[in-house]
């Protein structure tokens, strides 16, 4: 097999892996972007929600014995959905007792300083959850082992006799679920009554209040949903990626990179942003040493924030 064919195969492999992983990134970005879009809250603890989602999926999968009952395809998905539901409740509680105190209509109009307590509060929550996770779950890396984790479908040969694409089964399942959940959320936000209320509360909380919308409730639902979606994405990641309680920090930057890339406040943008980050990460493996892969994500993130803080698709809203 000659040099160019190897390169072609590597490129194809990186592209497919980027798309598959990127779709899950996209889903977790949607969770974060949803919270920011509706509440204008920078949630620093989103990585920890992802981590909780991973553990919740793990325990749902093993304790409920979903593997033998539902099989390797459906079992992890159901476990991840259960994790999402649990984290929805957790998000609701967090909002009720913590976030509602420093967010909502009264901090909306403030210039700059209003975000200060939110950032710090969610940083504190993230420290508590990550280290609390260490206390409860231990530091041994875990993963959800199914036969899918280490097997792949082969597509091809596409060119010559040897160039084919390998689709890791666990990642492919995660890809499909991510797309389905993102679409479901899209329809929820655009078509349902609650979705419309959420958008109204996001657009203009004051006017929404006058129209009889309970903005506080809308925020609570948005926060819960944002947690749930990211947790579900975490559950999907857990099927092919080993994790420990500090895993959140690895992903929180990816999430922020995706959300900023898509334009903060845009939920659709968050999806495409997350997908792009996945592609960038995988394609960077072609040229960078493995140790610098994560550094590459941070550098890309910095470049995005510095050059286009309004995102690729967003408008610049800051005015004198």
């Amino acid at each position, binding site marked *: 097999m000659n040099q160019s064919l190897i390169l072609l195969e590597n490129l194809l492999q990186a592209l497919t892996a980027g798309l598959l992983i990127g779709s899950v990134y996209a889903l977790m970005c949607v969770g974060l972007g949803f919270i920011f879009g509706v509440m204008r809250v*920078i949630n620093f603890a989103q990585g920890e929600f992802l981590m909780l989602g991973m553990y919740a999926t793990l325990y749902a999968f093993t304790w409920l014995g979903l593997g033998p009952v539902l099989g390797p395809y459906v079992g992890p998905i159901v476990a991840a959905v259960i994790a999402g539901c649990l984290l929805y409740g957790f998000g609701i509680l967090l909002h009720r007792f*913590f976030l509602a*105190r*420093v967010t909502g209509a009264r901090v909306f109009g403030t*210039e*700059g*300083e209003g*975000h*200060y*307590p939110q*950032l*710090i*509060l969610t*940083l*504190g*929550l*993230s*420290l*508590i*959850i*990550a*280290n*609390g*996770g*260490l*206390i409860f779950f231990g*530091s041994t890396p875990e993963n959800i082992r199914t036969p899918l984790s280490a097997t792949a479908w082969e597509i091809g040969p596409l060119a010559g006799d040897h160039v084919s694409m390998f689709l890791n089964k666990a990642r492919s399942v995660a890809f499909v679920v991510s797309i389905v959940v993102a679409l479901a959320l899209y329809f929820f936000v655009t078509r349902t009554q609650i979705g419309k209320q959420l958008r109204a509360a996001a657009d203009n909380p004051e006017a929404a209040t006058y129209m009889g919308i309970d903005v506080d409730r809308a925020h609570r639902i948005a926060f819960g949903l944002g947690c749930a979606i990211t947790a579900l994405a975490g559950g999907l990641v857990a099927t092919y990626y080993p994790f420990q*309680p500090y895993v959140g*920090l690895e992903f929180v*930057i990816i999430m*922020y990179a995706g959300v*900023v890339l898509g334009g903060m406040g845009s939920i659709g943008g968050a999806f495409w942003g997350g997908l792009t980050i996945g592609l960038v990460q995988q394609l960077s493996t072609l040229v960078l*040493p493995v*140790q*610098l892969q*994560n*550094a590459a994500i*941070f*550098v890309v*993130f*910095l470049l995005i*924030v*510095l050059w286009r*803080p309004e995102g690729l698709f967003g408008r610049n809203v*800051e005015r*004198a």
Partner: protein
Amino acid sequence: MTNPRGRPLAAIFWFAAAYLALGLVVRNEYYQLMLTLVLVWAIMGVAWNVFSGYSGLVSFGHASFFGLGAYTVALLLVKLEVTPWIGIPIGMLVGVAAGVLIGYPTFRLRGVYFALAMLAYPLALLYVFEWLGYQEVPLPMKREAPAAYMQFSDHRAYVVIALVMLVVAMLVSLRIERSRFGLSLIAIKQNEWAAEASGIDTWRWKMKAIMVSGAIAAAAGGFYAVVLLIVTPPTVFGMLTSAQALIVTLFGGVATVWGPVIGAIILIPLAEILHAELGDKIPGIQGVVFGAAIVAVIMLAPEGLVPKFRDARARRARGPDDARPALDEPVTAAPAARRTVGEEVVLRVANVSRSFGGLRAVQDVSFDVRRGEVLGIIGPNGAGKTTLFNLLNGFIRADAGEVLFEGKSLLGLKTNAICRLGIGRTFQVMRPFPRMSVLDNVVVGAFAAESDDARAYAAARDALARVGLAARGDAIAGALTTVELRLMELARAIASRPKVLLADETLAGLGSQEIGRLLATINALANDGLTIVIIEHTMHAMVQLADRLVVLDHGAVLDTGAPAAVTRNPKVVEAYLGPRWMARAQH
């Protein structure tokens, strides 16, 4: 500035003496290490506070400076045999350089974007240092001359060195707080646009602050390496390093000299003891303590402990009834007609245009402002009046055209430079520094004209007297009434000794008596020779005030001239004044 200078110095001295005594008495090595670490994190907190606390730009990335300081000291010692006595100062220079390199691109960002970008620097550095092969750098023991390499068998020496470093850091912090440096940063924190428009070079002050902060943080990191004798990327560049700096400061009290120190004294021993007692059973207890501390502070005392107790003490001392000082005698002035307006053009606006997307907010606008006159700008809502002011004072750039101030082009100049050239500004939507005293608000403007702080305060008091607010100097700006805020903005603008004042709807939201008071003040300023360009909707006020009017409609100049002539122009009547004005004016 108003407080006596001696007290905080004495407090720092007594604190240092007490801590030193404690450090010399304690013989247990573990507690000595803890006493040292408390000081290291106090220094780190001071470093964070000097930048983020005062300027309000939250940094999640101070581990960058800490880590670079630590690695500078460690690598210099390992590779070049350079003693930490020299390594730490070199590390501080590296910290300064890192501050410049990080600040230069990142200061374009505000708020959350800034915080997020700062997060990425240490995490990227962490992986880079791992990739470079520095996963673990132990500092070699120098048995032949330990003291020359900052290695002491008697660990009390480390307490002494750290204490000296902390005292120096606190003195730096105190000096910043008590000078225009600190006040400028606080002004930036409270309203960056207003600070810039008052003549503060926000970019330069932020840069200075991050340089000082980077140096202090790097010193803390370098010393940390000396004490622990080993440097790894996660311990010095990790998230918890940045978080600890921020948390001890917020816990103790942000933007106070003592906050980081108090925070470190309470939190570090708590976390360390819990870690030592329970660390094997409950591994993450340290992080939980820090997280819980910061959540509790945000929920219960968002300003931190020091301001909380200071407020409580001040309330007890003052008693419940804070008697409000009587208002000054309002300024009275002769009517407008007494002014003499020369022919000299001080500000020339030539064919200026600016579009936002498809909206042509200002198109091809030209007019002259003559020295000593009051030029009124009128026009319907959305005519581009405020946009015009934003173009004149540099908030936004013109797409085309030219603005000449005393013959010099203003295009491309930053807002603060335009202010210091002599164009002051007030805002339609007021932009006070709400948590600063009225006097401090005004002195921010005075800094632009006076390089000496004491003279700036004198100028600020003078400006307050000119608008009739001298008695309210000590009040907090956030507690003022609308008319007082309008007057304070005027005072802040004239404190920078402008040659031209841009006043944007200064009368908006006022009752008729208050309007009279402001009109008299503005008239008095004009009679003292100040050139004023004023946007106003209240026509009868405008007719009293202005020597000439410029009428804007849909971003273009409709008419220019004396009030009497302009208000009779049928086009102006149709576009703005309406037929009822016509009917009333004819009577």
